[in-house]
């Protein structure tokens, strides 16, 4: 179908991942951190699918399905934690929840 070189698809995945990392590090709001995580997971999935397409195999897509289910579970638990943190600290500030300081 597509004839784009795999390099381009992987490059897109790399850029999306880097954007996700930037968001993760810059934002203090936990909701944004979770969204950045979604972006990073998605980028990783894109890389798998592109690699799978390169070899004409389904394995890339299967791994993407695993990543998808993992992301779903992570978001469910993560959002429950967000609610918990919001109730405890009355804020989305991730730096407020620094009680595990050594």
């Amino acid at each position, binding site marked *: 179908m597509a004839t784009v070189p795999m390099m381009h698809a992987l490059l897109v995945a790399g850029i999306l991942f880097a954007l996700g990392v930037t968001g993760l590090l810059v934002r203090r709001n936990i909701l944004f951190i979770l969204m950045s995580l979604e972006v990073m997971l998605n980028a990783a999935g894109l890389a798998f699918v592109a690699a799978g397409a390169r070899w004409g195999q389904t394995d890339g897509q299967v791994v993407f399905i695993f990543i998808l289910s993992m992301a779903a579970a992570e978001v469910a638990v993560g959002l429950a934690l967000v609610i918990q943190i919001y109730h405890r600290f009355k804020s989305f500030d991730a730096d407020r929840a620094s009680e595990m*300081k050594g």
Partner: protein
Amino acid sequence: MLNLLWLIPALPMAGFLILGLFGSRLSRQAIPILGAGSVGLSAAVSLWVAGSFFISPPAGYAYTQVLWRWLEAGSLHLPIALYLDPLSLIMMLVVTCVSFLIHVYSAGYMSDDEDMSRFFAYMNLFVASMVTLLLASNLALLLLGWEGVGLCSYLLIGFWYRDPVNGYAGRKAFIVTRVGDTSLLIGLFLLFRHLGTLDIQTLMERAAHQWPVGSPLAVAAGLLLLGGAVGKSAQLPLQTWLPDAMAGPTPTSALIHAATMVTAGVYLIARMHVIYQLAPSAQFAVAVAGAATLTLAGFSALTQADIKRALAYSTVSQIGYMFLALGVGAWSAAIFHFMTHAFFKALLFLGAGMIIESLDHEQNMFKMGGLRKELPVVFWTFLIAGCALAGVPLVTAGFYSKGLIVWQAEASSAGRWGFWLVAVFGVFLTAAYTFRIIFLTFFGEPKSHVHKRPGLAMTVPCVILAALSMVGGFVKTPEFLGNIHIFTGFLHHALPPVAATRAASMSEMGSEAWVTLALMAGFAVAYFCYIYRPEFSESLTRPAIGKALYRFWKSDWGMDWLYDRLFVWPVMWFARVDARDAVDSIYTGMARLCELFYHGARQTETGRLRWYAAAIALGAVIFVAVVLFL
């Protein structure tokens, strides 16, 4: 029926395990029944075994029961095996029966104590260890029992552990006896190295074959074993722990620190008598240790104010008699005195326990007095035991056993005039301090109020022991008094009789007369000082020299002071000085380094999520770079 022998140590051991594991879940009525019952059954089995031994003695008057193999390494074969001969039979019989009586007494004495199950568990473990010690067929098993009784002694001295003084006394006992135990252990190594076995009977045979009389190896072995014996039996120079051991509950003092454990040293030397026959100089050292101890402890006993400490010094002094007997080769006399001493000294401690409890834990004799009418049963049993200790002629057991030792101190081939003199002087001291205790406690004006009276569980064992203290001596009487030799005759199957008496020795009757004279002198002195003219005893301590002597004797001839200066202080000083040496700084340095790393690592734990994420991202970047460019 001899094959029931294994039950005798196994029953108290089972009692210990049950009480130790489930003690907290048992009801308070069940604990004494279990604790005393296991020892009672053990005593019944030992009576049964003894009966069948008398009726149909096994071949060679010795019976070995191999239970299982313990260690097999090269030429070392150590079975768990029990060896029964007349010597171990008599010791075992006395130990189990006296233990049973004291356990029954404890049921009354400890009935209010919250830790009763722990107490009975320790006591049962003690009986099991003591019987193991006595019945062991090889020296390694003997050592196991030997250390077991030491452990129980430590645990029971520090039984009321909430008072640090008791813990201190327990540690002192443990460490001082440890000095002797080390010597004993080296002795075992020496015997194994040169004779190639630890089985006692084989050892005796090989020693007699391989070593000539007076060989240096035999002397060394004898002295090393003597070191172990003086530690366990509280003889000079390791006697300092026993008076402090009185910190434990009184039944413990009666059982462990008077009747049974402290005589383990006597048993050890009697068991290893062949070594001492081959080493006359080691045997002489035994006699000297005994003679010196019996006088020094006698003087100390005269000056104590605490009734239990006075009795403790008396125990030390009486074991000194046993050592003297061993030292002059009168083996059976030592065992005879062990037996009678177990009866009357246990009784004295039990009586002292009842007095102390009825006076609400008052131990100072000078605050007692006039208890004769208040506690009649205690008075009569205590009086009988005191008479037996002093050796009142004809009616008490102590007279026969002690008389035999005094006579043989001179009459046996290894005897000396000096020993006889010391022994007779010891009789004088014994009578003086015994009647001093009795006069101070039971006569004179009452000085304290009696709070409660002992129950049946406590008085019945005392009455039985009082009866034994009176009739226990009739198994061996002098020639001029019936000439009965059941006891020594039986023992001669295990221990050699006294070597040929010297030609120019005094008659047995003459010796007994002197003993009686010394006894009466001691009684007279005590009567004069504490009943007839009480102010006279006080005037004795008034001049400087009297006061100094009094304090010197009361502090056990300054032994504790001396050992503090000689051993404790230098070690403490060295430990303080050496606390910062090179080796130490390596270890503290390691600790410092860990601490440093810890502080460094702690800095990274900011608790900030984004810093962690940044660290992970940086790590990923570096890792990819490493993969790319290296």
